[in-house]
């Protein structure tokens, strides 16, 4: 009996340690509820996810002006917003870098970039860098697709926009579009997580 008890304790300890190891990992996993925020947009107004009453979800993109990968994807982020905002999945872009380290990502530079590129989505400053660590974003660009549910905005996809940063015309798989299309059709998302090279978020 004693050995059985010991065994039970051992199993429990092991299970617990595996569990803690998992929860210690930073950031959201698929299925987690993402935090809302109130961040300053380039027009000076504060923006929260809860402002979008009619949205079915959000394409949250951590991006910036200064990363060549982020720049390579600018037009494709804008295209995502054009395609999906009216269908209930607007793009919400968040600039996570410390602007003391990257002056090219200051709010004025963000305004200038948004104007030059004709961004139609909110481009928010993660002032104080409080939001990106909660999401677990590590780089720009880094996408979190959220679905609005009763329990909150649930993370449905994390990763890259598509599979070719170099050449939009040579893309084979549009990860984000496929994921949003699946949500719109009420289907299971096939590829829920992808990885891509990006620029480290500057702290």
């Amino acid at each position, binding site marked *: 009996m004693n050995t059985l008890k010991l065994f039970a304790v051992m199993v429990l300890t092991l299970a617990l340690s595996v569990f803690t190891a998992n929860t210690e990992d930073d950031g959201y996993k698929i299925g987690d509820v993402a935090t809302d925020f109130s961040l300053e947009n380039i027009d000076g107004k504060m923006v929260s996810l809860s402002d979008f009453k009619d949205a079915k979800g959000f394409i949250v993109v951590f991006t910036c002006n200064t*990363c*060549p990968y982020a720049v390579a994807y600018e037009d494709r982020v804008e295209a995502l917003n054009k395609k999906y905002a009216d269908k209930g999945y607007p793009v919400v872009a968040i600039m996570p870098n410390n602007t003391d380290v990257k002056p090219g990502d200051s709010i004025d530079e963000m305004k200038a970039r948004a104007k030059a590129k004709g961004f139609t989505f909110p481009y928010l400053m993660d002032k104080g860098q409080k939001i990106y660590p909660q999401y677990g974003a*590590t*780089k720009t660009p*880094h996408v979190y697709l959220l679905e609005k549910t009763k329990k909150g905005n649930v993370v449905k996809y994390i*990763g*890259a926009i598509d*599979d*070719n*940063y*170099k*050449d939009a015309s*040579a893309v084979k798989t549009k990860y984000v579009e496929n994921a949003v299309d699946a949500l719109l059709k009420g289907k299971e998302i096939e590829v829920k997580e*992808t*990885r*891509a*090279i*990006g*620029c*480290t*978020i*500057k702290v």
Partner: protein
Amino acid sequence: MKRLIILSLLVICSCKNKSEDTKEIKASEISLNENKEAENSADYDLKIYDYDGLEPLINKNDDKVHVVNFWATWCAPCVKELPYFEEINEEYKDNNVEVLLVSLDFPRNYDSKLKPFIAKRNIQSQVVAFDDVDQNRWIPAIDKDWSGAIPATIIYNKDKRKFYEQSFTKEELETELKQFLK
């Protein structure tokens, strides 16, 4: 060379105006330096790999300690830590340490940015270019925990392997490296 002679002649001929001729000399010097740099950098034999080509280079089974750093000329924290990798490549040569710098620069920038950077910094560690768009395949293959942010570094020998998704100071890099030295 002809241009240089013409320029020098111009410099000599325009002696009347002193400020002008210093300008001329400077201009000729600059163009000369740029030409030199371009020539040197064009000489650099840059090998370009996709993941299948790179894979054996980052999984060598020999008696050396290998330090592999993923970087790009556009990545400020990468450029900042690059001298430390150069230093350990030099200082730990006798300890069988070998540094490989894997550049993730865009192919269109190989000649305009990467090669001139290697020449200007006189980089001694081996530099290879890595060009493979299927990042979702090779990022987890290189390390299951890599989110894809650079700089990233692998230190390994035939017994042990560690992956770092971070920037290093010289001290931090040496501390990690020493774990691999016998």
